[in-house]
């Protein structure tokens, strides 16, 4: 954009405006015919525009909800019920907003995994990627505070648990939590500020999305082959080719979205949030919204409070430095046979973490039998000195034999069974959780840097056009 930009539009009114404020030029070069786009983008490239649509859906439905919602601890729950029962189409608007948040996360997670698979985070798109991660963080903060607003049991206890994370900060933790609450517990002041922030943050997200799209427009989109666009023969204009493809994606997305909004609007929510907040009783099983589960699992994996919180934030923090952790010069997983395998393992690990996040940590998964040594020691303590020595000298690996010692020690059958039960060795959810958490960081901190050195990548095509145009690449008739 030169200082004396002269618009090239034929229409004199558009030309007049555009010369003074090149807004038509901006739209045209961002999403119009004036935006050359790689010609080989696949459907994974639809999720950026879908994320934009989700943001718009959340903004519009959110404004409407705010017209009827009351941010006060005594009235918030009732005002949400008022929206559901009294406000014209209020139920629809609320279900759109609640399910819209979930769909926003689905879309953005897919968008991020797309970036991971095709190496879209690599130079020259590092800043674009980091802005994306920033959007994710902002979305998480916004969604968390939004979930508090209906002031149900899950709202209240979710807010309590998450704000208490900050109490892990050494020395000043408690002061920080008091500051966040505006009191000595989650209460009306907390609700009021969460409402204010829940209204503010989406505008911050919008601003960041603008920067994100701007940063995208500098290098232009990456593409499934990950190689750079070499010239006009590799591109097609964004409009009409990708506008129409995006519209098709939007139609499919909306069909699925409406299926949830109209036929299973509460499938992704938690029924306990239809119970008004009660500061005196915690629900027996509190779980965060599904999109927080993997991060929640990472938090629980670490036995130390502070380190758990650190690990949770680090799980997103590693994404920020990913462009520098990845040492491979090849972007797309299509040409990285090893990375491709590890990518899919990583996906499974992420789903596994999500599953762990909602399961009871002490639920046994794989039984390994009993710890005979511990059982024997327990029985031995009740035996006279000589039989004690005999038992401990060679602990029998057989429960039957152990039981005879138990009877000799005067233990009842029931007491023995209780002992065996107590010393059962299993691989439980917490173990799996820890394993997957370790793998998560292993993937980013060890695998990704090493792969760049050891992986033998497949030869890259000359250009986007060549695999299609060169005779050798033509399919056999």
């Amino acid at each position, binding site marked *: 954009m030169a200082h004396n930009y002269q618009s090239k539009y034929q229409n004199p009114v558009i030309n007049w405006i555009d010369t003074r404020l090149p807004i038509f030029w901006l739209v045209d070069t961002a999403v119009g015919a004036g935006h050359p786009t790689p010609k080989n983008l696949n459907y994974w490239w639809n999720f950026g525009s879908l994320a934009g649509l989700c943001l718009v859906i959340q903004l519009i439905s959110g404004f409407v909800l705010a017209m009827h919602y009351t941010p006060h601890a005594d009235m918030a729950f009732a005002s949400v019920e008022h929206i559901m029962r009294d406000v014209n189409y209020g139920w629809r*608007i609320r279900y759109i907003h609640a399910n819209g948040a979930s769909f926003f996360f689905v879309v953005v997670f897919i968008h991020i995994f797309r970036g991971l698979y095709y190496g879209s985070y690599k130079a020259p798109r590092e800043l674009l990627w980091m802005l994306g991660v920033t959007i994710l963080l902002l979305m998480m903060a916004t969604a968390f505070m939004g979930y508090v607003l209906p002031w149900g049991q899950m709202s209240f206890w979710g807010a309590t648990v998450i704000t208490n994370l900050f109490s892990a900060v050494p020395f000043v933790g408690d002061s920080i939590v008091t500051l966040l609450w505006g009191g000595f517990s989650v209460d009306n002041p907390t609700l009021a500020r969460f409402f204010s922030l829940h209204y503010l943050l989406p505008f911050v997200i919008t601003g960041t999305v603008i920067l994100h799209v701007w940063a995208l427009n500098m290098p232009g989109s990456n593409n499934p082959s990950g190689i750079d666009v070499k010239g006009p023969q590799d591109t097609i204009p964004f409009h009409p080719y990708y506008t129409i493809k995006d519209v098709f994606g939007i139609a499919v997305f909306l069909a699925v979205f409406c299926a949830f909004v109209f036929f299973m609007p509460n499938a992704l929510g938690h029924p306990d949030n239809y119970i008004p907040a009660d500061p005196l009783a915690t629900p027996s099983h509190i779980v965060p919204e599904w999109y927080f589960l993997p991060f929640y699992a990472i938090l629980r994996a670490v036995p130390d409070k502070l380190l758990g919180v650190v690990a949770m934030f680090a799980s997103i923090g590693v994404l920020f430095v990913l462009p520098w952790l990845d040492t491979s010069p090849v972007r797309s997983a299509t040409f990285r046979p090893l990375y491709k395998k590890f990518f899919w393992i990583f996906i499974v690990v992420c789903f596994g973490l999500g599953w762990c996040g909602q399961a009871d940590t002490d639920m046994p998964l794989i039984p390994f039998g009993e710890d005979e040594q511990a059982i024997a020691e327990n029985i031995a303590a009740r035996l006279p000195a000589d039989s004690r020595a005999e038992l401990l000298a060679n602990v029998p690996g057989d429960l039957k034999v152990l039981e005879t010692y138990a009877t000799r020690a005067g233990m009842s059958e029931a007491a023995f069974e209780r002992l065996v039960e107590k010393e059962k060795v299993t691989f439980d959810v917490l173990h799996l959780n820890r394993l997957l958490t370790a793998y998560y960081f292993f993937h980013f901190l060890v695998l990704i840097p090493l792969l760049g050195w050891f992986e033998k990548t497949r030869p890259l095509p000359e250009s986007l056009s060549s695999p299609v145009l060169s005779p050798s690449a033509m399919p056999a008739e």
Partner: protein
Amino acid sequence: MSIEADAIDGADVNRRDFIHIATGSMLAVGGAMVAWPFIHQMNPSADVRALATIEVDLAALEPGMGMKAMFRGKPLFIRRRTDAEIAEAREVSMTSLPDPQADEERAQKAEYLVLLGVCTHLGCVPLGTGSGEKRGDYNGWFCPCHGSHYDTSGRIRKGPAPYNLEIPFYEYTSDTTIKVGKEV
């Protein structure tokens, strides 16, 4: 696919035009259907609509007394008129009224006058219903904001207000109770 193969027999329209028009129409219809709930949500909600009618008991009113009630967020004036007040309202010549209307049309039972207490000038609440309040030059109501005078039928007689005080929809549910407002 050639253009010829696309063309619909005998018509100057081809498949692609049809798809474009169909897509555009679907978008317009769909857009309107999506937009309507977002507009309609601003209309009165069910709890507001439930308060669209009120019942008022007139039994306690003595001749010459007035009372106020809340109706749809606005003051409702009811005056049990004396015979003298009714006669006063009915003797006026129509030509002397800025907004001519016979008193017979303004009260279902001559005794009870039911009015919206909103000045037709700029919306202030006129004085005259409570005992001891100023009633203006025509012994009805007086609006203190810019000096509008209403008579014993609630008709505008003097001052900037253009119309008579509004009569809300009401019906008698018994001899001395009325139900004000239409269900919505």
